[in-house]
């Protein structure tokens, strides 16, 4: 499954002109509000008919203004989880969930009703009306409703915004599982953590234009984009693989830059993981440091340095071909250490966050 999109539309006060290709997996649309993220997925869903554009999903032309093709939303089979739940108030939760099923082709592959309701924790709500649900419950029903309509592509517009942290943690693995099962997802999110955890591909939007688009790891490692991709929360994602459990209980993960030890991770050797490393959690040393409590020290060399006007800098440290870590340092430190492109150094990681990445294993 691959989605090719190009669209141009002038709203008068705002105009959008974007083009990108979303390969299989999760593609995140990231950018400040007003960047045009929702406009883009509205065009994919068919709710917006752009003045110029082309949308092709896996070879099926959904929209081609040049050829006069416009497939109505109901014929696109694209699941859309809106920012607000948009549940039908006159139908029970069960009828809401089953609404799309009667319109979907019988032969189409779909999710199992019981599995979806169990996963979303809404099994007990089936006979209630949307009016009696809390915000989080509504959001979950709305995700279930889109999933059960047997979509071939899922659009998620800030789907987790209305959920509390605990529920978010329950839903995130499910979106990961959908992604790993091959359902393509176009995700709009403000949360850089969410994007880093879920997305293989990132499209960075600003003022209706694509600032950057490409594999998540590449974009996150680009120091010139770090300010746009999270600022203080900027960081990179590197792949890792579980190597085994140490005698003292620590779990050893292998990365391209050396071993990383964590306390909480899957223990099955060979499991593919994504490590998210915040730039502000990385200290840089020219020599391999001694007498330091930090366990996780990766070797690499400086690839790029991007100075900020505020006296700080993002330093990209390459640990392998196509794999980098970002470090947020002051420009004084950069000068004191003599960091420059090509200089060998060590990245000391204070903390790492990890998530499963079955796609990486495939």
């Amino acid at each position, binding site marked *: 499954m691959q989605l090719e999109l190009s669209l141009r539309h002038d709203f008068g006060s705002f105009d959008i002109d974007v083009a990108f290709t979303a390969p299989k997996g999760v593609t995140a649309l990231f950018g400040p509000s007003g960047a045009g993220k929702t406009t883009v997925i509205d065009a994919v869903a068919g709710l917006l008919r752009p003045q110029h554009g082309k949308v092709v999903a896996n070879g099926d032309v959904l929209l081609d203004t040049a050829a006069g093709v416009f497939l109505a*939303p*109901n014929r696109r089979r*694209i699941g859309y989880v809106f920012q607000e739940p948009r549940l*039908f*108030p*006159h139908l029970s939760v069960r009828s809401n969930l089953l*609404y*799309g099923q009667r*319109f979907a082709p019988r032969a189409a592959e779909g999710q199992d009703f019981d599995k979806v309701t169990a996963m979303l924790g809404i099994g007990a709500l089936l006979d209630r009306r949307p009016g009696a649900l809390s915000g989080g419950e509504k959001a979950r029903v709305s995700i279930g409703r889109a999933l059960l309509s047997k979509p071939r592509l899922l659009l998620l517009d800030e789907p987790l915004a209305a959920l509390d942290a605990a529920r978010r943690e329950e839903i995130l693995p499910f979106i990961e599982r959908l992604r790993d099962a091959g359902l393509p997802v176009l995700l709009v999110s403000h949360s850089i953590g969410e994007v880093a955890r879920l997305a293989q591909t990132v499209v960075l939007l600003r003022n209706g234009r694509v600032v950057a688009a490409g594999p998540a790891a590449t974009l996150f490692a680009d120091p010139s984009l770090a300010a746009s991709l999270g600022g203080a929360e900027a960081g990179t994602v590197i792949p890792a693989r579980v190597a085994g459990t140490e005698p003292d209980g620590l779990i050893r993960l292998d990365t391209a830059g050396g071993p990383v030890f964590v306390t909480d991770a899957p223990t099955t050797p060979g499991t593919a993981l994504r490590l998210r490393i915040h730039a502000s959690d990385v200290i840089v040393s020219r020599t391999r440091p001694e007498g330091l409590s930090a366990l996780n020290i990766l070797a690499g060399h400086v690839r790029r340095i991007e100075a900020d006007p505020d006296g700080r800098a993002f330093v990209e440290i390459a640990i392998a071909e196509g794999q980098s870590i970002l470090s947020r340092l002051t420009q004084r430190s950069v000068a004191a250490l003599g960091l420059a492109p090509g200089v060998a150094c060590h990245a000391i990681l204070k903390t790492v966050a990890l998530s499963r990445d079955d796609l990486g294993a495939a």
Partner: protein
Amino acid sequence: MTALTSALGPVLSAEEWTAVVLSLKVATVAVAASLPLGIWVATVLARSRLPGLWLLNALVHLPLILPPVVTGYALLLTFGRRGWVGQFLDQWFGFTFAFQWTGAALAAAVMSFPLMVRSIRLAIEAVDPKLEQAASTLGASRIAVFLTVTLPLIAPGVIAGMIVAFAKAMGEFGATITFVSNIPGRTQTLPSAIYAFLQVPGGEVQAARLAGVSVIIAVGALVASEVIARRVAKRIGGQ
């Protein structure tokens, strides 16, 4: 009906009873026949952004502001035996509105139409188009969206519109008497009968009785609409 007629025998004379039944028939047919068109026009007025829609809006509301006699006269010119539509209907279908109860129903429908459209239109405007969008992304065609989302949500407004239109149709006098006259047993509706009784000496008692029947029907309709609308609202917005 006959059982009811005989039960009410002591209360209403046969002539009065005929007028009551005719009025109920005229109002029911008027509302039922104009409902689909009413929903359609209300939808267009609420949702369409076509230019020139104000013209349709004005046309629909015209019977509300014109003197009823003028509306009746316009109906006579259009649908009368010599009218341009009436002539056509007579020639091709052998059907005429003139001096028939169907004519009274047409007059009642035209007069009550703006009230029905107003009520339905308000209900449609209260429906969030985002819900309809959501339904379409779930695979529902435009007709399916209307039948499964819009219509259930506007049901209270539709019912309210039907009741108001029914009450208006029951009470329609000016356009009816102008268009189809006041023929007992054929076009003499309740208001026409009251008017006729007031024209003859000693008819006040009958007129008062019919007026009482009018009040009972009107209040009954109002109560019924409240109960139904409340029940529907509870069902669709309920917990």
